[in-house]
C-alpha cells in the first residue's frame, strides 16, 4: 500500500528515510519523523479499533495524549509487548509491529459490532451491571467474557527483555512543556544561570510551534524553535528531556518524569541503553506550560472515522504532511477552527464548508476566510454524520443565538472529513495533582489551574492564554520569576515579536442540538473510549446521579487510558445543562497521577529480580553453599535452613542434625543475630530501664538473658546481653528485630532520658558468630582455643571470655539456646570463614554437624525457649509466657513494661498462657496456627481456647512436640484439648510443661 494521503512537500518528516511497519497484520510504510498515527493516516487507514461497548469502528481523532481511539498493542515478540500505546505518541521505527487492542477477528470485520449496532439502544449506562447482576455467583463468569469482548490491550506473557532505570534529580526550575510558553520560560530561567530541566512528552521539542503558520521575530516559528533549542543545548545548566512526560506532581514539588529513551528506536532498546527512565525530581520551582487540549463538538455519529478535532488536522497537515481525506467540513464555535480549513486549503484539498456557530462573527479570521474564497456558513453547526467506516456526508443545522436549539432542518453536505472545535481545555492535570481545584473562566470557556500551595507557576494556554504573543510573554515572565525566587537574576530576555491574526470572542457550544431529543437522535459520543454518550449522561442525571463524581462513576466517563482528556469538559457541560446548572456549579472531577499510562518497567526500574531487595549474607556463606544448604529468608538475611545430604528428605536431615547435636556436637551460623554495642557511664542504668529484668549486679564477664517489652507490657524482643566492662555492654537481639531495637533504644535515650550518658552502635555485621553446641563442644574448642580455661568451674554457664582461637582474637559466650553445653564464638567477620573451616577440620572426629534455623527451632522448642515474633505476637506479656522470673519487680525505676503489664486486662484471670502440648498420637505434628477447643462436638462457631505457635517432630524425644497458648493454661496441666483441622480431622492433645527435655538443666551445666 502506498502513502496515498501523504503530501508531496512540507512537514517535518524525512522522505529520504522510509520505515516499514505492520498494523493488524498488514505492511505499511512511513517516514522518519512520523508518529504511528500520522503514518497510519498517510496510508489511508481509517479504522484503528473498535469501541469498548458497542464495537463501533473507530479512527484517529486527535494528534496527542488526548487520542481516545488509536490505543494499540505494540511489540514484535512476546517479551516486548506493550499494551495501550497511543499511536499519536509513538514514533514509527523500522520493523514496528502494532495490533488493535480490540476487534475480532479484525477491526474491519468485527463480530461484536453486530451486537452494538442492533442492540446498542438497549445498552444504557450500567447495562452490564443491570443485566448480569443475577445470580450474583455468576458475575465472575460473566465478567471474564464481557472483558474479553471489550478488550483494551493485554500484558506480556514473557519477561521484559529490556532494562529500565530511575534517576534522582534536583532542579531550580522545572519547565513542563516545550511549546512557546515553555521555551520562553526555559530560555529566561536558563539565562539567569539557574539549573533548568525542560521536559516535553513529544518526540520533538517545540509543541504547537512545530505546526504553526505564525512568524516569530520575522522568521518561521520552527526557525525560532531551533534557535532557542540550540542556545539551551549549549547551556551546562540546562537539561532537555524530549519524549519525557511529567506524569505526577506530588508533595513539596516532587515530580516524576517518564522518559522514553529507546521506544522510538526499535522493538528492543539498543545494547547498553535502558529503554525507559523514571526521573524522580525535586524542583524548587515548577513552571507549568502544559498547553491545552482542543474540545471537539458533540454531534450525532461523531465517532465515524474521518471526524477529527480541528487542531489535530492542522498538526497532521503541517507537521507530518498528511491530509487524511479529500473534502472537509469544518464546524467551529471560535476562530481556532478556521486554521484547519486554511491549512487544508493550502494543502490543495477541498473545503466544502467552514461552519461557524456564531451568528455574525466579524474579525481578521473571517476576513481571511472570505479572502480565500471559502464557503463560510454562520449560525450553524454540524449535527449528524453519515457513514460507518468513513464519513460520507455531514449534516449542518441552523442554531439559535446561544446554540441551545436547532432552528431549522438538516442540510447534508458531501464530504469525507469533519473537523470540529468547541474551544480549548487547559491541561490542568498536573496542577490538580497538587490538590488545586480547577477554576472556571467564562471568558475562555474553560477551567484553569486553581491556586496551588506548591511553588508553581503557569504560563500560556494552560493559564487560558491562547494567543502566541501572550504565550511567549507569560513564558518569559514565569521563567524569570521562578529563577529569581530560586535566587538567580541578571537575565535579559526580550519577548519575541509575533505577527498573528487577532481573535474575536468564542461561543460556548459543547453538544450541538439535534432536531430530535438526544435519546432519539443518533449517538452523540462524549467519551469515545468508554462509549459514553450525551444521552447516557442525561439518563444518569435523570436516574438521580447529581454529583459529577457520581455521573463519572455511573457512566464510566473519563475512566479510560485517556482519562477524559478529550471528553470530560463536554460531559460536564452536558450534565450541567441536564441538571439546569452552570458548569462551575456542576464542577469538575479531579485528575490524579499519572497523566498518561506508565509502564511497570519504568515504575520498577532496576528494583527487580536480583535487585528487588538487598540480600544479606554472613561471612560463612560460601561454605554453606558448597555444603548444599537450603536457605531461608529472615528479613533481608539469607540463613541456612537445613543441610540435606544427597537423597535426604527435609525431615531426615533435621532428624540427623538434631541427633548429632544432642549426641556429639553441632554448629549454627548465628551471625545474623542483632548486636548492639552499648557504652557510657549510664549504660547499665539504661539497660535496666529497657529490659524487664534486673541488670544492676551483672559483673564484667557475665551474660544475662533479657526480655524487652513495650509500654503496654507486651514482649517484643529478647536476647542475651553481656557485660564487657563496667560501662560497656553487648546486646543481642532477634535477627529481624535488630534495626527496630536500635531505634527503640535511641528513641528512649533521645526523647525521655537524654540526661543518661549512653551511646549505641550496631555491630551486627562486625562479628561472625558460631554456636557450637553438644556434649563434645568443650573438647572440640579446647583443641583450638589456647588462652581460655574451658573447664566447667572456671568458665561457667552464662560467662563470657576474651581469647584467641587459631590465632584470631575472639569472644566466647557460654550461653545455650539448645539446652546443651554450648559456646558462641565471635570473631571479627572477615575471619569468620577461616575459623568455621578450622572448626570443621578439627570437628570431623566428633562428627561436627552443621545445622540450620529449622533444627535450631526444634532444639529450642524441646527446651521451651520462645522465639519472639513466633511465640509472641504483641499481645503476650512475660507472665503469660511463664517468664515472670524475668521481671525485676524490685527494680527502683519503673522500667518499660512494668506499668503496662499491671493494666486491668493484663492481670485478669483466664488470659491465654504459654504451655507445651503433646498430641495423644506422638506421630501427628500439629499444624502451626491451629486453634484449640474444649469440645470438638460443640456447634460452630466453636469457643476457641488458643492457638499453636510452634510445632515440630523431635527425633531425640521420638515424638511430636508443640508450644502454644491456652486460656488459663498454666493451671490446666494434664488437661486434654482438641484441635479441629481444616481437613476434618480432630487432633487430641495434652497440656504440659513447655520444657520437654532436661527440666533441671543438667545437660548444659557440665
Amino acid at each position, binding site marked *: 500500500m502506498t502513502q496515498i494521503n501523504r503530501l508531496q512537500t512540507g512537514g517535518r518528516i524525512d522522505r529520504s528515510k522510509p520505515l516499514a511497519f505492520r498494523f493488524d497484520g498488514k505492511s505499511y510504510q512511513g517516514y522518519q519523523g512520523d508518529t504511528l498515527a500520522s503514518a497510519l493516516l498517510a496510508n489511508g487507514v481509517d479504522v484503528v479499533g473498535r469501541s469498548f461497548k458497542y464495537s463501533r469502528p473507530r479512527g484517529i481523532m486527535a494528534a496527542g495524549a488526548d487520542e481516545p481511539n488509536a490505543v494499540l498493542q505494540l511489540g514484535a515478540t512476546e517479551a516486548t509487548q506493550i499494551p495501550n500505546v497511543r499511536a499519536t505518541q509513538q514514533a514509527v521505527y523500522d520493523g514496528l509491529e502494532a495490533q488493535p487492542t480490540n476487534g475480532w477477528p479484525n477491526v474491519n470485520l468485527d463480530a461484536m459490532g453486530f451486537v452494538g449496532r442492533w442492540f446498542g439502544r438497549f445498552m444504557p449506562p450500567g447495562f452490564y451491571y443491570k443485566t448480569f447482576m443475577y445470580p450474583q455467583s455468576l458475575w465472575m463468569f460473566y465478567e471474564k467474557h464481557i472483558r474479553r469482548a471489550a478488550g483494551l490491550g493485554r500484558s506480556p506473557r514473557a519477561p521484559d527483555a529490556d532494562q529500565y532505570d530511575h534517576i534522582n534529580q534536583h532542579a531550580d526550575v522545572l519547565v513542563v512543556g516545550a511549546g512557546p510558553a515553555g521555551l520562553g520560560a526555559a530560555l529566561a530561567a536558563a539565562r539567569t544561570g539557574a539549573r533548568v530541566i525542560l521536559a516535553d512528552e513529544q518526540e520533538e521539542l517545540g509543541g504547537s510551534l512545530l505546526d504553526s503558520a505564525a512568524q516569530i521575530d520575522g522568521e518561521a516559528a520552527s526557525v525560532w524553535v531551533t534557535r532557542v533549542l540550540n542556545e539551551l543545548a549549549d547551556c551546562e545548566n540546562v537539561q532537555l528531556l524530549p519524549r519525557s512526560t511529567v506524569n505526577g506532581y506530588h*508533595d*513539596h514539588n516532587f515530580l516524576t518524569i517518564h522518559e522514553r529513551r529507546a521506544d522510538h528506536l526499535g522493538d528492543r532498546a539498543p545494547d547498553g541503553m535502558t529503554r525507559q527512565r523514571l526521573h524522580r525530581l*525535586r524542583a524548587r520551582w515548577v513552571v507549568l506550560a502544559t498547553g491545552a487540549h482542543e474540545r471537539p463538538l458533540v454531534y450525532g455519529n461523531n465517532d465515524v472515522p474521518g471526524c477529527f478535532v480541528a487542531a489535530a488536522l492542522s498538526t497532521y497537515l503541517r507537521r507530518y504532511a498528511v491530509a487524511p481525506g479529500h473534502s472537509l467540513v469544518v464546524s467551529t464555535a471560535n476562530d481556532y477552527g478556521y486554521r484547519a480549513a486554511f491549512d487544508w486549503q493550502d494543502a490543495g484539498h477541498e473545503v466544502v464548508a467552514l461552519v461557524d456557530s456564531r451568528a455574525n462573527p466579524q474579525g481578521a479570521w473571517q476576513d481571511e476566510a472570505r479572502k480565500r474564497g471559502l464557503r463560510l456558513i454562520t449560525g450553524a453547526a454540524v449535527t449528524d454524520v453519515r457513514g460507518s467506516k468513513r464519513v460520507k456526508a455531514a449534516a449542518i443545522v441552523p442554531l439559535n443565538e446561544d446554540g441551545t436549539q436547532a432552528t431549522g432542518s438538516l442540510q447534508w453536505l458531501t464530504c469525507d472529513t469533519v473537523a470540529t472545535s468547541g474551544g480549548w481545555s487547559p491541561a490542568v492535570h498536573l496542577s490538580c495533582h497538587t490538590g488545586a481545584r480547577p477554576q472556571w473562566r467564562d471568558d475562555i470557556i474553560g477551567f484553569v489551574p486553581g491556586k496551588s*500551595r506548591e511553588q508553581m507557576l503557569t504560563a500560556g494556554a494552560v493559564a487560558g492564554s491562547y494567543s502566541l504573543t501572550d504565550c511567549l510573554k507569560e513564558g518569559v515572565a514565569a521563567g524569570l520569576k521562578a529563577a529569581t525566587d530560586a535566587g538567580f537574576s541578571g537575565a535579559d530576555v526580550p519577548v519575541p515579536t509575533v505577527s498573528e491574526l487577532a481573535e474575536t470572542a468564542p461561543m460556548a457550544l459543547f453538544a450541538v442540538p439535534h432536531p430530535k431529543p438526544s435519546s432519539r437522535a443518533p449517538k452523540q459520543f462524549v467519551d469515545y473510549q468508554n462509549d459514553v454518550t450525551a444521552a447516557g449522561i442525561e439518563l444518569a442525571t435523570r436516574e438521580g446521579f447529581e454529583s459529577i463524581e457520581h455521573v463519572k462513576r455511573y457512566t464510566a466517563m473519563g475512566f479510560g487510558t485517556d482519562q477524559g482528556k478529550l471528553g470530560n469538559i463536554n460531559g460536564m457541560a452536558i450534565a450541567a445543562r441536564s441538571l439546569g446548572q452552570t458548569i462551575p456549579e456542576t464542577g469538575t472531577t479531579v485528575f490524579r497521577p499519572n497523566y498518561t499510562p506508565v509502564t511497570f518497567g519504568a515504575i520498577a526500574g532496576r528494583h527487580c529480580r536480583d535487585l528487588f531487595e538487598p540480600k544479606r549474607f554472613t561471612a560463612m556463606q560460601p561454605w554453606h553453599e558448597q555444603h548444599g544448604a537450603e536457605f531461608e529468608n529472615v528479613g533481608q538475611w539469607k540463613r541456612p535452613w537445613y543441610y540435606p545430604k544427597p537423597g535426604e528428605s527435609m525431615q531426615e536431615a533435621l532428624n540427623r542434625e538434631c541427633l548429632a547435636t544432642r549426641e556429639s556436637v553441632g554448629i549454627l551460623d548465628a551471625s545474623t543475630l542483632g548486636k548492639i554495642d552499648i557504652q557510657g557511664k549510664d549504660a547499665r542504668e539504661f539497660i535496666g530501664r529497657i529490659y524487664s529484668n534486673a541488670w544492676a549486679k551483672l559483673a564484667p564477664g557475665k551474660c544475662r538473658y533479657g526480655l524487652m517489652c513495650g*509500654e503496654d507490657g507486651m514482649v517484643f524482643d529478647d536476647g542475651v546481653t553481656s557485660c564487657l566492662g563496667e560501662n560497656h555492654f553487648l546486646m543481642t537481639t532477634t535477627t529481624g528485630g535488630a534495626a527496630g531495637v536500635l531505634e527503640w533504644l535511641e528513641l528512649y535515650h*533521645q526523647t525521655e532520658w537524654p540526661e543518661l550518658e549512653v551511646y549505641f552502635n550496631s555491630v551486627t555485621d562486625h562479628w561472625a558468630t558460631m554456636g557450637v553446641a553438644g556434649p563434645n563442644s568443650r573438647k572440640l574448642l579446647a583443641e583450638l582455643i589456647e588462652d581460655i580455661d574451658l573447664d566447667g568451674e572456671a568458665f561457667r554457664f552464662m560467662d563470657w571470655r576474651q581469647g584467641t582461637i587459631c590465632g584470631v582474637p575472639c569472644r566466647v559466650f557460654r550461653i545455650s539456646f539448645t539446652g546443651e553445653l554450648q559456646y558462641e564464638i565471635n570473631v571479627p567477620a572477615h575471619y569468620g570463614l577461616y575459623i568455621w573451616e578450622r572448626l570443621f577440620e578439627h570437628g570431623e572426629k566428633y562428627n561436627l554437624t552443621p545445622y540450620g534455623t529449622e533444627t535450631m527451632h526444634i532444639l529450642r522448642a524441646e527446651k521451651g525457649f520462645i522465639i519472639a515474633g513466633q511465640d509472641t505476637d504483641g499481645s503476650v506479656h512475660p507472665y503469660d509466657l511463664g517468664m515472670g522470673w524475668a521481671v525485676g519487680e524490685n527494680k527502683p525505676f519503673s522500667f518499660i513494661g512494668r*506499668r503496662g503489664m499491671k*493494666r*486491668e486486662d493484663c492481670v485478669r484471670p483466664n488470659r491465654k498462657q504459654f504451655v507445651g502440648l503433646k498430641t495423644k498420637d506422638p506421630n501427628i505434628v500439629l499444624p502451626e496456627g491451629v486453634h484449640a477447643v474444649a469440645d470438638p462436638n460443640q456447634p460452630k462457631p466453636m469457643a476457641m481456647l488458643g492457638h499453636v505457635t510452634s510445632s515440630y517432630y523431635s527425633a531425640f524425644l521420638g515424638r511430636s512436640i508443640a508450644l502454644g497458648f491456652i486460656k488459663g493454661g498454666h493451671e490446666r496441666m494434664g488437661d486434654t484439648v482438641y484441635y479441629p483441622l481444616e481437613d476434618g480431622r480432630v487432633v487430641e492433645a495434652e497440656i504440659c510443661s513447655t520444657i520437654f527435655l532436661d527440666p533441671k538443666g543438667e545437660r548444659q551445666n557440665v
Partner: protein
Amino acid sequence: MFYIYCPYCEEYREEEEFHPKGEAHIARPEDPDNCTDEEWGDYLFFRKNPRGVHHELWVHAAGCRKFFNVTRDTQSYRIYESYKIGEQPSVSA
C-alpha cells in the same frame, strides 16, 4: 513525598531517609506506677489526629539517627518547621 529539614544535619533530605514516629510531645509520665489505668491508657493509646496543624515526631533513620519534631499540616501536607527534641514549636493550631 515529603522534603524534610533535619535540624541536626541542617539540610533538607528526602522522606525516604526518615521514619515517622507519631505525635510529638507525648511525655512518659513521671511516676508510671501511680498512674490510674485511665491515665496510663491515655499515654499509651490516645492521640490527637487533627485535621490541620500537627506536631509530629520523626527520626532521621537513614541519616544521623536523631529524633526531632516537625510541625505539619495534615491536610495540605505543608511542613512549617522542624525543631529539636526539647524545643517548643513556633507554629501551633
